[in-house]
């Protein structure tokens, strides 16, 4: 129903702009139905990093479709993940036009917007919305991934929300169930709280059989912060900053979480090498059947469900992320981070290249293509996909993804965030190496305060852009574009 409503509204809006658009000599767009290919023979250069699986599946499945529809050749330049931000910053600061579209993680948007190299998308949308449908994302996701403060600069390539994957065959095995019952005096169930996670993890940790309880990412400052926040921190009530932009990593909750997540008890239930594991290793461990449970994000779905990539694809189940049992209220708290990269247009390229870039974004990352991707891989990030009855019937986890995308909290995207993220991530790694959590977290907190202060945030009247404020930005932007969104009502 919502789809139909959205389409009707869009049609109405589009019709308003029709005379205007034709008067402007409307921008020609790739149109698979009419077969119009105005950019035939052109090239589009994308600075990319082949990071999470969903991107690889997108390129494999959707790019040929786009190239066929448009006649445009896509040229990827893949950089190592840690090289991408330096590459974009150095190129942008020089006003370089050597790529048209860039891969921008949500935490980087502030730094790049400050450089003035993110092209705002409003005018392209107003002239020719195509299949872009920005209102097809939750406001939380759109505010985090596609916007730099109040500016709309990208179309999300994916929206990552926390997920919990587990081995259905192990949990359903009667022998395992009996053994667990004998050992712990309760039913073997997929863990719902941190304590249960540790208990079930201990049960499945059998180094002699090359099986371990679970595994998380501790390998890089960026990775460790993600898992700390997504899978533990938020549920314990940890946040990044208060409204005055004071960092909150020295709170009791933050320190407790660090002691649990990076403590030796939890580390011991993970495969050897865990201190250096990044995205790839933890995913590979699960896909090769070496761990029983895997705290991950929705971008892993395509690979986890792909029998060619995972030997346990047929035995993979998804559950809510285990939460923190609040001793006062007795309820299980859990909350999630939603984040992701968006493809953004380089502001320093020629007008024609910008038009081609928009054409690519609206079609290759539009509603129709997203649906194709979800059908084939089980991963989606647009509301229309996450709530589609047929798709939900095929992939039940989409509903949980949708709920998470509605409440997910995003990373700050201030210009100095990459540095702050590095400071707290390093401290967490040091905790995992056996350091004292309390001292390290307080020190890191002070470092972040200094970074924020250095950037002039305490004395120049700049304030923290909270998650709610971001939603306001999104709703204001949608209103400006003449779009309606349920969450903005």
């Amino acid at each position: 129903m919502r789809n139909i409503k959205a389409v009707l509204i869009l049609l109405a809006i589009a019709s308003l702009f029709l005379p205007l658009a034709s008067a402007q000599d409307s921008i020609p767009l790739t149109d698979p139905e009419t077969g119009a290919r105005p950019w035939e023979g052109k090239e589009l250069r994308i600075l990319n990093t082949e990071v999470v699986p969903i991107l690889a599946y997108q390129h494999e499945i959707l790019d040929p479709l786009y190239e066929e529809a448009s006649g445009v050749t896509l040229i990827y330049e893949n950089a190592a993940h840690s090289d991408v931000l330096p590459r974009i910053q150095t190129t942008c600061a020089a006003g370089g036009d050597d790529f048209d579209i860039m891969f921008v993680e949500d935490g980087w948007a502030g730094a790049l917007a400050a450089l003035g190299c993110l092209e705002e998308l409003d005018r392209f949308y107003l002239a020719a919305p195509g299949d872009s449908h920005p209102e097809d994302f939750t406001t939380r996701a759109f505010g985090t991934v596609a916007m730099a403060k109040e500016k709309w600069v990208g179309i999300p390539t994916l929206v990552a929300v926390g997920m919990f994957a587990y081995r259905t065959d192990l949990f359903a095995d009667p022998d395992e169930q009996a053994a667990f019952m004998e050992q712990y005096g309760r039913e073997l169930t997929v863990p719902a709280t941190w304590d249960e996670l540790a208990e079930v993890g201990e049960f499945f940790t059998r180094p002699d059989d090359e099986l371990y309880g679970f595994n998380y990412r501790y390998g890089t400052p960026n990775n460790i912060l993600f898992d700390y926040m997504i899978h533990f921190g938020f549920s314990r009530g940890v946040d990044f900053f208060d409204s005055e932009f004071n960092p909150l990593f020295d709170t009791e909750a933050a320190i407790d979480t660090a002691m649990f997540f990076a403590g030796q008890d939890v580390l011991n239930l993970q495969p050897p090498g865990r201190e250096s594991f990044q995205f790839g290793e933890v995913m590979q461990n699960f896909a090769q059947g070496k761990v029983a449970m895997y705290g991950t994000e929705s971008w892993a779905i395509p690979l986890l469900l792909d029998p060619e990539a995972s030997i346990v694809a047929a035995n993979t189940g998804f559950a809510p992320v285990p939460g923190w049992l609040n001793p006062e209220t007795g309820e299980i708290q859990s909350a999630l981070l939603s984040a992701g990269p968006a493809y953004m247009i380089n502001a320093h390229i020629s007008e024609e290249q910008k038009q081609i870039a928009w054409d690519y974004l609206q079609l290759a990352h539009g509603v129709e293509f997203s649906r194709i991707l979800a059908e084939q891989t089980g991963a989606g990030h647009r509301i229309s996909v996450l709530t589609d009855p047929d798709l939900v019937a095929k992939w039940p986890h989409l509903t949980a993804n949708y709920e998470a995308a509605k409440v997910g909290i995003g990373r700050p995207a201030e210009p100095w965030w990459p540095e702050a993220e590095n400071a707290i991530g390093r401290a967490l790694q040091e905790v995992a190496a056996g350091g004292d959590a309390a001292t390290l977290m307080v020190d890191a907190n002070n470092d972040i305060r200094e970074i924020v202060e250095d950037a002039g945030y305490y004395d120049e009247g700049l304030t923290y852009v909270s998650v709610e404020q971001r939603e306001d930005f999104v709703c204001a932007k949608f209103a400006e574009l003449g779009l309606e969104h349920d969450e903005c009502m």
Partner: protein
Amino acid sequence: MRVPTSERILAYVILIVMAILVLVPVLAGSITAFKPQIIWVSSPPTWIFEPTLENFEFVFFTRKGWVYLRNSLIISGGSVAVALILGVPAAYAFARFRFRSSKALMQWLISLRMIPPIVVGLPFYAMFLYLERGLGIGLRDTFPGLIITYQTFLLPLVIWMMRGYFAELPAAMEESAMVEGYTRLGALWRVVLPVVFPGIVATAILNFIFAWNEFFLALILAGNRTSTLPMTAGTYIVRTRVEWGNLFAVNLIIMVPVIVLTIILRRQLVKGLTFGILE
């Protein structure tokens, strides 16, 4: 020198172990480049398999390895050519003319090797930025820009090595040529250079290896148009997995030309690597 047999056997054993320690990682890694994807990662390692070239195909065509190979060749070749054009005459002067500052200058040239690339790379980036913004001269992500930057480590080495080759020649050579009516430049060009040509080749090859393996300056100053091979090796470490087969295919493409050049050059290698300080 006469060496007791037991000592000799011990020496052989240790040296052969050292050689194995070199060869095993290099060879075991390299054969991964010929493994099909399914056995890139396996424990215990798979030694017997049907070799495939699909990794090379992927790296070379799908991932545009040939473009990076071309870039690497242009940048390394170009910067060596420039270093030779500038460095050979200077080396000749240092070898032939006695002048007051000559020793101090040569020492200064060695000291340039101490300068860490970050000290040069950062201001270079900033300078390119100002040139581009202020004067509209784009050098970042261009071949000339990188070729100029590479002179920081190539030019001193060329001067030091070539000075050694010139010094080995008797001065009488040009003098008699000059008596016959050649100018000094003419004598250098017609008489001296043909004789030191093998030295020039050795210098060029060694400098080419240095430029070929360079990573740091390229990381900062190269871009889409000029990415070099070493820059692309890291892109096969993706969050999903490390594509070992593809990675080692790139590694081989970087490694093999250099090893071949090394075999050609082995006798000259020390002189170059030590800046000729040993003479």
